[in-house]
């Protein structure tokens, strides 16, 4: 079948939450444990309906908190089940302790994180302070620009997580409200296509296998702890190849292309913005506008943040003169956001490395408009012409 045909069949209009819930229904995991929280509530609401209607075989565990949700996920995954959950913001924060246990015990849990700001002040709208706070928790993180990508990432996440070279939990991020509650056109796959693509999960160990009894989570002190962490670090490194091969397989099967990054109009670009998730869509409009008036601007959108694709990112950016990395989160280090810090570090040592500036934007759901992206590009073009970087890190989309 031609790629074009593959890309246009089964068109439906769904919100991000509905698409994620639908993906979960089609994956039909063994266990889902979750506690609802805005803006990811819709995911569990719809998945619960599938469960109530007998559309899935899943054991649905409704717990009393997100700490319990992730704990139940860990237990179920250690028992050898294919496990999924969804959360946002404070919910992810409450899972914190157990996130590290999931990755440290090498349990391939898939979590949909519908990005939302963290308190205080309390806020229900989008920024990345929830998932970015968990960036060192040992979870693979994929950031989705669109509803289609959130859906596709869910399917690929299962394969990535369960790959024997990886065995790490995966967090699929999509922007709260902007992506989770907006209806977009997307192309869904059939249940049988998904079944074939994700395959059967064969756990390495299972607590329920009484013929081969194992212990999970035993005390591991000076004599072995660092070796276990070294393995985990290796798994994150191995995940790079697996993410690419799963993406390639997905493309070959269904026609949509997925790698570490999306490059948008980077041919001959003098300056570029690096940005995650839905804000990339806004930035692309600005790129088109500026390209029409002869300005060579481009965009790089990392889809994968953990493992951090530092080689590919620096490769993509090495030809440009100035780069702005836009973070929808502030690390509160007085040195910008995490994407900025890591991108800048990836560029270090490059010959003729571009100037790299960081801008924090859109916290707590503050709008990021095309005009904001245009302003950043104009600033970058000025840096390119003058070589002057006035402020390495700053805020945009904020009232002065």
């Amino acid at each position, binding site marked *: 079948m031609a790629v074009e045909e593959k890309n246009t069949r089964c068109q439906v209009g769904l919100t991000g939450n509905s698409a994620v819930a639908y993906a979960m229904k089609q994956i039909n995991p063994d266990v889902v444990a979750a506690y609802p929280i805005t803006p990811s509530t819709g995911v569990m609401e719809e998945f619960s309906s599938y469960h109530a209607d007998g559309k899935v075989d899943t054991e649905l565990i409704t717990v009393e908190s997100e700490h319990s949700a992730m704990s139940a996920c860990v237990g179920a995954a250690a028992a050898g089940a294919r496990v999924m959950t969804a959360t946002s913001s404070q919910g992810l924060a409450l899972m914190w302790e157990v996130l590290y246990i999931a990755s*440290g*015990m*090498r*349990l391939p849990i898939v979590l949909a994180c519908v990005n939302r700001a963290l308190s205080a002040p309390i806020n229900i709208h989008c920024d990345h302070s929830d998932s970015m706070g968990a960036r060192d928790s040992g979870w693979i993180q994929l950031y989705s620009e669109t509803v289609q990508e959130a859906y596709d990432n869910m399917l690929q996440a299962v394969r990535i997580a369960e790959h024997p070279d990886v*065995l790490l939990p995966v967090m699929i991020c999509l922007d709260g409200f902007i992506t989770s509650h907006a209806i977009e056109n997307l192309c869904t796959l059939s249940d049988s296509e998904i079944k074939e693509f994700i395959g059967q999960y064969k756990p*390495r*160990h299972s607590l329920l296998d009484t013929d*081969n*009894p*194992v*212990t*999970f*989570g*035993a005390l*591991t002190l000076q*004599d*072995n702890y*660092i*070796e*276990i962490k*070294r*393995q*985990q670090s*290796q*798994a994150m490194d191995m995940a790079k190849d697996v993410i690419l091969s799963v993406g390639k397989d997905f493309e070959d099967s269904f026609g949509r292309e997925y790698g570490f990054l999306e490059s948008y109009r980077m041919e001959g670009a003098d300056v570029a913005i690096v940005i995650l998730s839905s804000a990339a869509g806004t930035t692309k409009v600005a790129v088109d506008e500026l390209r029409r008036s002869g300005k060579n601007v481009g965009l790089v959108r990392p889809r994968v943040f953990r493992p951090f694709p530092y080689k590919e990112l620096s490769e993509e950016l090495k030809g440009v003169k100035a780069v702005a990395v836009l973070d929808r989160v502030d690390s509160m280090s007085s040195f910008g956001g995490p994407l900025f810090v890591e991108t800048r570090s990836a560029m270090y040592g490059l010959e003729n490395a571009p100037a790299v500036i960081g801008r924090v934007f859109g916290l707590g759901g503050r709008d990021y408009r095309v005009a904001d992206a245009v302003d950043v590009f104009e600033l970058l073009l000025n840096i390119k012409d003058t070589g002057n970087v006035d402020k390495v890190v700053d805020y945009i989309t904020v009232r002065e």
Partner: protein
Amino acid sequence: MSEKEEKKKGWKDLPIGGVLLIPGSAHDYSTGGWRKFRPILDEEKCTDCKICWVMCPDSAVKVEDGKMVGFDLEHCKGCGICAVECPDKVKAITMVEEEENK
């Protein structure tokens, strides 16, 4: 393979995620070295009710032929739970400082 040999393995060879593949391997780990107080049994008083055997968190109370016969000092970590749980009317276990046992 003994637990000691396994400990020397490099990170590429250890079971991933710290999973223990050998059942009952806690037996090879001596918790007796933690002990500050040693339980001492007064055989005269003991009624063999085996409450201490039930309550010991380290399975360090030894029972043979239905009789309480003493403690497995390789694993007894000296918590004193047995001494507390031994019925008030009996109190056949006293905790004595290790120093005094030398």
